[in-house]
């Protein structure tokens, strides 16, 4: 098993390398450069040219890339021209916020998906299944940002059950119990809104997996052993159907990244998604590239986690 994991991690390195080159080249292709935002427009163009030279902005692209990646590895992602502060510092808190928002969203996603998927798959073509499938169709058809807006309006403004902006109540001491509770409280509505929509994929997937597994020959073998129906479901059908769901986990993370961009914006939640959105509007390139790089790494990590989980639970992969 660990061999597989190690090999899988080794594969990741060139993946991330390629990703960083790609992002770097894309950033290069965009108008302006790291200086455009930094400098005083009243400065003499000759001065600017000198600064360019000094900063290495006239070097070949690969030399610049090496500079950039060296910095990135050491945690130096450049300066944000809007916030006038190092990107890494800017990102740190937001990264933590988004991380926790994603974790909570994932938990809620599975809390919804697993019971619904199981019910729907086990009792397919009953009224319960039809209601659940109906919900998934609505979920597929509804854009996240509209749904999030509606949720915000109903539960945030109309009923006032949830805070409508921010990630924590201002003035609380970090690390205290109240602080943590407030953090979770702020996360809840965005997470639920996002989860309710993204979960429909998983529900559908689990449903069809279960229906498929139900018809497999080894299920008949289990019945012929005299296993009661509950055992057939719990020991044989469920385990075999949850396996592909584990493989789905990586995609879930990628999907989540897209989701957070909208949801954070709508709920005024200071996370990576919001930062990304705003930086694009303001053409704060060093931030944008950094955020894209992190998103990319998160997707690659997601795929890695999927594969490792799969190798843990699927003996057919575990052996290799």
């Amino acid at each position: 098993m660990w061999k597989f994991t190690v090999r899988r991690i080794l594969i990741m390195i060139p993946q991330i390398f390629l990703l960083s080159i790609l992002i770097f080249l894309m950033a290069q292709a965009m108008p302006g450069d790291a200086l455009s935002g930094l400098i005083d427009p009243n400065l003499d163009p000759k001065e600017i040219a000198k600064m360019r030279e000094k900063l290495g902005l006239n070097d070949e692209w690969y030399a610049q890339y090496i500079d950039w990646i060296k910095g990135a590895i050491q945690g130096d992602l450049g300066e944000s021209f809007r916030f006038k502060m190092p990107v890494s510092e800017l990102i740190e808190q937001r990264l933590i916020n988004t991380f926790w928002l994603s974790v909570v969203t994932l938990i809620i996603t599975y809390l919804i998906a697993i019971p619904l998927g199981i019910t729907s798959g086990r009792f397919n073509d009953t009224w319960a299944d039809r209601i659940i499938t109906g919900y998934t169709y609505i979920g597929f058809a509804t854009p996240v940002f509209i749904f999030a807006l509606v949720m915000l309006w109903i539960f945030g403004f109309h009923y006032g059950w949830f805070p409508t902006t921010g990630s924590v109540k201002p003035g609380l001491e970090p690390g205290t119990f109240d602080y943590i509770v407030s953090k979770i409280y702020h996360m809840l509505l965005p997470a639920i809104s996002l989860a309710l929509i993204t979960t429909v994929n998983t529900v559908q997937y689990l449903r069809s997996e279960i229906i498929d597994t139900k018809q497999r020959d080894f299920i008949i073998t289990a019945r012929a052993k005299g296993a009661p129906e509950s055992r057939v479901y719990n020991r044989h059908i469920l385990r075999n159907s949850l396996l592909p769901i584990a493989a789905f986990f990586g995609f879930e993370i990628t999907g989540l990244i897209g989701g957070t961009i909208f949801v954070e914006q709508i709920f005024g939640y200071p996370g990576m998604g919001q930062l990304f959105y705003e930086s694009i509007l303001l053409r704060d390139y060093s931030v944008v590239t950094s955020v894209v790089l992190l998103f990319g790494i998160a997707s690659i990590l997601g795929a890695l986690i999927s594969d490792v989980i799969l190798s843990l639970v699927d003996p057919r992969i575990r052996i290799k």
Partner: protein
Amino acid sequence: MGFLEVEDLKVHFPIKGGIFGRTVDYVKAVDGVSLSIEKGKTYGLVGESGSGKTTTGRAIMGLNNITAGKITFDGYDITDLKQAELDVRKQIQMIFQDPYSSLNPKKRVLDIIAEPLRNYEKLSKIEEKKRVQELLELVGLSPESIVKYPHEFSGGQRQRIGVARAIALKPKVIIADEPVSALDVSVQAQVLNFMRDIQEELDLTYLFIGHDLGVIRHMCDHIGIMYKGRYVEQGTTEEIFNSPQHIYTKRLVAAIPDIDPSQRKKQIQFRQEVQTEYEQSYNEYFDSDGLAFKLKPVSKTHLVALPEVE
């Protein structure tokens, strides 16, 4: 010199291990097999599951990398795929074991049969269709079948489609890998009869791989018995069935179910005798690794793997 000759064929598959997938060992799937088939004859390759029959067939087809050995066809050396001219290569075709999964279910019969034609010959659409229809007629299917999909056919008919594909390029040799193992008796009879018919009609040479000795006996002129990648015995059908020399062959022959129930007692007794002999004389027939010895001739056509006499 036979029409198709295999000399000391070896196919070893590497076993990978470690993080970097280094080769740690080899599976000697085929380990020194020689055979020779005369034109128009059927050569049977028998042996237990995993003994290397399919691998031998695939190696001759050029589908497996050959570790060592030489394959000649009609005098040409075809061992190295790249050296062999395509023209020679297409003279050897293969029929696969499972008629249910060896045909792509999403393709129409026309596309399935025309596939080798498209690889080797440039025909216009009309010519191609005509050829396919001729082939279908030859295998006893209606020419209208071209627009159908494999699932619309019975097992025997599907195997015929497989045969039609195999003979599309007018090959001289057909390697049939357990062509009837997945079929029931009546369909099996249909396919076997049909294979004999086209053999005569097209002057085909068969390498017939199988494990049903009844079928092998019915079809083959010569038989080779494989065990763990090596030959234990080779001879004419007569020799193998009437005077098997190697204990493994004896065991195989004894295991054939007799279709006459009144022989049951005798058969069981016979089998037990062979089993006892097998257990007692195992060391005389296999080396310390449990592998067969080199073949020694006992008659002009009959070879048996026996130890060197001291």
